Every structure is written in C-alpha cells, then in structure tokens.
C-alpha cells in the first residue's frame, strides 16, 4: 500500500482499530477458534469436555446420516446455484434490450424475494404447499392437474425439489440483476461489430456476452454456493430436515446433534467441515472460473 498523507505514529492507529477488532475477536473470531477446539472434544454442555482428537471427524465420515446430508446439499446446489445462474443469464440477455422503464419495473418484481427473510419465506411456502388448503394444490386442481396435487413437503421424493424451487425463486432475480450490470459494462461497440459481421443473436450471446460475463458468473457462483452450504433457515422452517432425512443438510444435522442431542463436539465438527468446504469451494472457484480483471 502506498503511504497515505495521514500516516504517522503507529501507536495512535490502535485507537481506531481496537474498538471494532476487540468486539470482532470476542464475539466472532474467538468463537470460531473455540469451535475448532470444541470439535476435538466430546462435550455434553454440562461436564468437562473430554479430548478425543480427531474422533468426531472420524465418526462423522463413517456416519450414514452425514453422507445423506452432504448428498442432499449437493442436490440442492442444482436449485441454489445452477438454475438461478442459467435463468439469471437468460433473463438478463432478454431484459437488457428493453426500454429503461420496463427494465426497472421487471427488475423490481424479480428481485423482490431476495430482500426477504428466508425464515419467513419458509413459513409462507409451507402454507403455499399445504396439501389440504394450500393455494398451490388448489391451483393445480383448478387447472385440471389435480393428479399432481401432492403433499409436497411430506413426499419423500418431491420434498427436495419442492424446497429447492423456493431457493431458485429466491436467487434468480438477484442473479439477473448482477448479470444485467455485467452486460451494461460490456463495450457496446462489440455488439455493433458483431451485427455488422452478420452474427446471429445466438452467436453474439455465446461468443461475446457469455465470455465477457465471466467475472459476474464467478461472483454469482461464489455467493450461491456459499449460501447453499450454509442453508438452514429455509429448510428448518419448511421441513426441519424431514421427512425421513429427505431434506437433511449439514447445518440441520449440526443443529440436531448440538441443540437436541447435546453432542456439542460432534456438532462443532460438522460446522468446521462446512467452513472448510466453503474455503475450498471459494478457492476452487477463484482458480477455475477465469476472469479478465483479477479481483
């Protein structure tokens, strides 16, 4: 960093740093380190924690339920990451050509779910999906698709997509907005040149728009993948991981082990695996998804 004109005595710098850093250390970083330590112990929350080394991690990776949770999480990524990404790009490419006011109006509507509390969205969708009086099944019956009016959140096969669609609904407008600014960042003369060369709309999209949107694709992937790994609120309020583990994800499992079964060491181990997974995926996306401007 270049020296700023304000730079001077290092002692007085701490006056600015300490209030924020101390609070952060006490209530975020300290607990993160403590979680790491806790994951190496066996602890019921009452007695003295017992050191077990990597025992919790060994147990976890021979635990079928943990694998179920990981597999569900991987499947949910289709709904958290892939669908919003694809829909977002496609919509941005369509909306981009429209007049400013119409663009703004569409953006306002499509973005709306993203500002809502996911816990409350879960409760709302549990009502929409309700098999007895939920509007969703009433709609299906009204249009003659009564055969498909399933008990969505109680059906072992359909519950994961049913929850996943809510995540897609939550994220796709957000993705569109990010891609829309990405497209506006692209030099318009590139599109003009493509038109002069007689490139079709499809070719222009795949050869110009898409490659130049790589920085945005990377950001969207990062944010949605992390959101899918930490998913808790939405699933907790809709299904609590059920029926029969069909929507169990690591953070729900962590909650069950910790706050329902008082196995805090094992729960902390799941939390740490989740954090490591986040770091690993973050790193992988930074390395694999190329971008023109390094950031």
């Amino acid at each position, binding site marked *: 960093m270049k020296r700023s004109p304000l730079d001077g005595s290092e002692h007085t710098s701490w006056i600015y740093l300490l209030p924020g*850093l101390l609070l952060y250390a006490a209530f975020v970083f300290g*607990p993160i380190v403590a979680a790491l330590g806790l994951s190496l112990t066996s602890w019921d929350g009452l007695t003295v924690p017992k050191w077990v080394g990597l025992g919790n991690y060994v147990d976890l990776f021979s635990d079928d339920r943990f694998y179920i949770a990981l597999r569900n999480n991987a499947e949910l990524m289709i709904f958290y990451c892939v669908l919003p990404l694809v829909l977002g790009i496609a919509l941005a490419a369509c909306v981009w050509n429209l007049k400013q006011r119409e663009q703004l109006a569409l953006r306002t509507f499509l973005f709306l779910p993203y500002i809502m*509390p996911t816990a409350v969205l879960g409760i709302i969708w549990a009502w929409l999906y309700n098999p007895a009086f939920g509007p969703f099944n009433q709609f299906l019956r009204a249009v003659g698709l009564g055969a498909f009016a399933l008990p969505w959140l109680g059906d072992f096969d359909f519950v994961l997509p049913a929850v996943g669609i809510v995540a897609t609904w939550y994220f796709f407008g957000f993705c569109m907005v990010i891609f829309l600014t990405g497209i506006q960042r692209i030099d318009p003369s590139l599109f003009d040149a493509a038109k002069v060369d007689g490139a079709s709309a499809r070719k222009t999209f795949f050869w110009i728009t898409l490659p130049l949107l790589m920085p945005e694709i990377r950001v969207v992937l990062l944010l949605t993948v992390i959101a899918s790994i930490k998913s808790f609120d939405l699933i907790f309020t809709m299904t609590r991981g059920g029926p029969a583990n069909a929507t169990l994800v690591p953070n729900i499992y962590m909650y069950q082990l910790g706050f329902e079964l008082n196995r805090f060491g094992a729960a902390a181990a799941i939390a740490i695996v989740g954090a490591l997974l986040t770091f690993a995926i973050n790193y992988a996306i930074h390395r694999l998804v190329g971008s023109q401007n390094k950031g």
Partner: protein
Amino acid sequence: MSRSSNIPAATLSFRIILWLLAFVTITPFLLLLLTSIKSKADVLKGAFALPAYPHFENYVDAWSAGHFNIYFWNSIIVVIPVVAASVFLGLLTGFAFAYLSFPLRRTLFGILTIGMMVPAEAFIIPLYYEMRYLGLINTYAAVIVPQIAMSIPFSTIFLASAMQQLPDEILEAAVLDGAGRFYILRKIVIPLMVPAMSTLALFLFIWTWNEFLIPFILVNDDAYRTLPLGMLFFQGRYTVNTPVLTAGAVIVIAPLILTYLVFQRRFIAGLTAGATK
C-alpha cells in the same frame, strides 16, 4: 438471420413471457396480502376467491393477540443499535485500514475476511456458551452485540474501499493546514462518506431485520424475540388460522418492501458495485 425484421415479434413474445414470470414471482406475496384480509370462512371458499369485504381485524389480532406488537418493537430495538454501531465502528476500523499503518496489518485483514466467509452456524455453539457465561441469554444484548461484531468485517472493508477512492489532495491539504487525524476523519472524511454510509446502513438494516439464527439460539423468551422468530413461534400457535398467520407475515415484510421500493437504486447500485469488485 434477418434480425431487424424479427425484432418486434420476438420482443413482444419475450416481453409477455418476462411479465408472466414477474407475475408468478410476486404471486406468493399477492396471495399473502389477499389472504390476510379474508375471514376464516372466506379461506374455505378457495385461495383465489376474493373476500366479500376486507377483514382488517386480522391485523389487529396478529398485532396484539399474536404478540406482533412485541416482535415488531423488538426488531426496531435491535436494528437501530446494530446499524448505528456497525457503521460507527466500520468508520473507525475502515479509516485505519484505508490510511494508517500498524503492525500485523495483513494478518488482521485476513482474520477479518475469515469472519466474512465463515457463516454464523459454524460458531453459534461457542457463542451460545459465551453468552450464557456472560449471563446475557434472553437479553437484547444477546441479539445486538454479536450482530454488531458479525458486521464489522463487511463494514470495515466496504468503508475502507470507499475511503481509498477519495483523492489524496484533499487529505494532503488538510494535513498541511495542521489538522489532526481525528479532526480530518470527523470534518472531511465522514461528510464525504455519507453516500457510502447510507448504502451500508441499508444493507445492515435488511440483514439485521432478517436475521434468524442469532435470536433463534440466543433468546428463548418471547419478550425478546424479533419478527422472523416471532413468526416461527406464532405459526406453531396459529397453524389453523391462516388469515392471521398471513397478516403476521405481511407485518414482517411490509417494512422491507417499503425500504426496498424507496431505496431501490441505491441498494442495487451498492450490491452490484460490491459484487464485481
């Protein structure tokens, strides 16, 4: 492909699809609003049927009998100090990271970014026991203090990068005039940071209003629950009374929708600027 001749037809069908999608996207909210003014008898006539006349008493029920008055008040009591303290502390630490040198600068910055990536789920158990040790479970402090701490990394990085964009000349001139650091922060930097501070406050308001895990774990007394929590426990008591339940949901999301509609441009500009940096 002769694109020019196809454009009107193509865009029209595109536009119809886009508007249909926009309509489907907000349908859950429209249904919520519609159901919240129905009577229980109206609900039995079907989800899409209109009520004979609006039943605003559902809101009264949710507000007083459903304790939403308490939850709403708690959300306000929590959001204001979290936003104010986070912006204030973000200004101080952001100022230090933007302009000052100090030992372990890079390490401290790295430690801050860890806090931005690790979700609260990962450290909620130690945090719960820390709060219990401090005797803060079931207090406003249990909900307020950790959320200030959790927002420090974002506030710091957001404001530091905004401060770094200020031209050096302004600061140099102030230093030449003999102004001290704190004076420069107060009289020169902060006035220029007002747009960045208001964008930050907007993000923090929405995140804090929506926070679920922290109050869920650290508070179990109804008197301290914020709106999203209140909604969950309210659902447990009122599952059969859909109109009052939906009225409660409207009370939770109405302030968000209002804020979003008023500050939409600022919100989206801040979001996309942050996302592509």
